[in-house]
Every structure is written in structure tokens, then in C-alpha cells.
């Protein structure tokens, strides 16, 4: 019986559940003060919802020389985009590598709308991303079902373990090993990517997970990768794998 349980656990376990046990995983939400939690929980108080509303307007707006709106192909986002953000980054067969949701939106613009790509961290890209991500609110993260993603998850994991910068710190040193402690008075979270794009009070705006990761990389005094760099997508992919089955919160609020 005991052996059967162990075998079942081995086959069900996600690729890297080793560092933080699934029962120990906590969203950044759990580390927040009651006021900030209340802000996220109330859709009329969560400033991220302003981006979601803008995204909804953009979704229906015709773009590019093809004169097509997202809605012309995808219809009602509440149905067609449900659960989509929970599966990103996803493998793109044409490119032969994983793409982030931001990149998917811009690929769609190029291929189907014949429109200019939206700049990373631009208002419109964040708004569209937030609108799509909001359709997965409360759903479990389900990244990584595609076996072709495996080598890229591996690369992301290596990057997570890789010491870098003048402080010579790896992601794992804080977010796996010391997450219950504090850094300069603020809780060190587990770095679970459940709520992106997120309205961050420090930024006073919505930002992507890449912005957040670049912030961390700058924090250890390393040179951050450019927005959309394969390394950032792989790191995001690994983080999403690490947070598999946790509930999506986008647009979240973070301090």
C-alpha cells in the first residue's frame, strides 16, 4: 500500500516540486496586508480592472490593414479565452520555442491583423494581456502539458538556480530557501507568478511578469535580459510550472 502511494506520488508530481512542497506553496497574496488584499478582492477598488476594461475595448477594435478585431476571430473572450492565460507560455510550432502571452498577442497582430506589434509594457499590450488573463481568474495554472516544452522548462530551471550579478544570488536563494523571511522589512515571497499582469503599488501601474523579473535581476545587480528575451520566457515558463495548479489571480494587486 505504502509503495503504491509513493509510486502514485512519483508519477503525479510536477517536474520540479522538490523545493517547495505543493502544500507549502503560497501566492504573494498571502503575504500582503489586509488593506492590499481588500483592494485586490474588490473589482471596483482594484486599479488593474481599469486595464481590463481598456483591454475589452481593444479586443473589439479593428486593428491593422486587415481591418480585423480580436473578436472577429476569437468571438466572446469570456468563452474563447477562458483558461488560455493559465497555459502560457505555450509552445509555438512555427517558431519552435515557447512564446509568452505578450508575444502571442503580437504574433496574432502580425499574422492575422497585419498590424504593428505593440511595444512591451505599452498600455495597450498590458491592457489586452490583462483582459485575456482576467478570463482565467480562479482557474488552476496548467502550463507545460506540451512535451515539446520540456527542454525549455529545463533551461528556465537552470536560470532559476544560476547565481548571477554582483551580489552573486540566484532566484532559488531567496524564493525557495528564504521565502518565510524578510528583506528590508518586506516579506520575501515565493515568487509564484499567479497574478500577472499585476497592478503594483510601487509601480503605480500595471506591469508584466517580465518587468517584475527584470526588477529582481537588477536587484542582484546583474544586467537584465531585454523584454521578450528567450531567457525571460523560459524563466516565466519554469515559474508557471513551479506554480502549476495554483489559482490564477490576474489582475492581482501587489505592494
Amino acid at each position, binding site marked *: 500500500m505504502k509503495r503504491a502511494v509513493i509510486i502514485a506520488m512519483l508519477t503525479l508530481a510536477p517536474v520540479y516540486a522538490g523545493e517547495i512542497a505543493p502544500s507549502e506553496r503560497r501566492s504573494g497574496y498571502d503575504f500582503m496586508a489586509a488593506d492590499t488584499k481588500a483592494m485586490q478582492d474588490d*473589482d471596483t*477598488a482594484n*486599479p488593474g*480592472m*481599469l*486595464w481590463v476594461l481598456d483591454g475589452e475595448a481593444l479586443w473589439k477594435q479593428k486593428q491593422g490593414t486587415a481591418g480585423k478585431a480580436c473578436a472577429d476571430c476569437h468571438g466572446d473572450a469570456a468563452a474563447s479565452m477562458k483558461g488560455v492565460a493559465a497555459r502560457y507560455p505555450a509552445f509555438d510550432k512555427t517558431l519552435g520555442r515557447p512564446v509568452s502571452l505578450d508575444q502571442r498577442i503580437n504574433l496574432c497582430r502580425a499574422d492575422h491583423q497585419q498590424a504593428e506589434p505593440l511595444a512591451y509594457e505599452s*498600455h495597450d499590450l498590458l491592457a489586452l494581456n490583462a483582459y485575456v488573463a482576467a478570463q482565467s481568474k480562479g482557474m488552476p495554472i496548467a502550463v507545460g502539458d506540451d512535451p515539446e516544452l520540456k527542454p525549455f522548462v529545463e533551461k528556465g530551471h537552470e536560470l532559476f538556480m544560476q547565481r548571477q550579478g554582483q551580489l552573486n544570488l540566484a532566484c532559488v536563494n531567496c524564493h525557495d530557501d528564504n521565502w518565510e523571511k524578510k528583506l528590508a522589512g518586506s516579506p520575501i515571497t515565493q515568487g509564484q507568478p499567479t497574478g500577472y499582469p499585476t497592478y503594483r503599488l510601487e509601480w503605480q501601474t500595471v506591469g508584466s511578469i517580465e518587468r517584475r523579473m527584470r526588477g529582481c535581476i537588477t536587484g542582484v545587480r546583474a544586467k537584465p535580459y531585454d523584454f521578450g528575451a528567450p531567457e525571460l520566457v523560459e524563466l516565466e515558463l519554469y515559474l508557471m510550472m513551479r506554480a502549476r495548479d495554483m489559482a490564477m489571480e490576474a489582475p492581482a494587486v501587489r505592494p
Partner: protein
Amino acid sequence: MAAALISVPKQAKRGDIIEIKALTSHIMETGYRRTAAGDLVPRDIITSFACRYNGREIFRADLFPAIAANPFFSFFTVANESGKFEFEWIGDNGYSNTASAAITIL
């Protein structure tokens, strides 16, 4: 940018104390920050917010540079008649934004 997010109960009983919430998008640039080149970023803030209930002003606030981006107001009033709440934000560079919400007294 989305104009505003307003929360007013659709229905209330006469005499109920109701909560009104108003969130609007605005960068609230303080006017104290400088660019990398050292130039001052000009101030661009909302300077006043007001809420009228069937034409009668029930809430007003003046805003200053220390207030964060995307200001959020929450306040209470007594629901005494069916009608309309009108919200108005006024700010630098001719900024003006309005919104409204209806309430029915049962």
C-alpha cells in the same frame, strides 16, 4: 484609458446608508520628478473630485501631488430618493472626466 470604475448600489431602501466607490485612471504626475536628462517632468494631476446626488453635492475633495496614481474614493451617503449620482474629476492641462450611476429606492 478607461474613464472610471463606479460602484453604487442599484437598489436601496429609503434611509439606507450606502457606500459609493469611485476609481479613475490618472498618472498623477507630481511635478517634482526629473527625467534622466535632468528636466522637470511637468505636474499633471487631478485637482478636484466631486459627487452630486440628483444635482446636490454630497462629496468633494481636493487632490494634491502626494496622492497616488489612479485615485480611489470611497464614501457613504443616505439613500433618500431614486435618481442619479454624477461624478466629476477636474485636473491639470484641462483634464475633465465625468461618470454617472443610477439608483432606485424601493
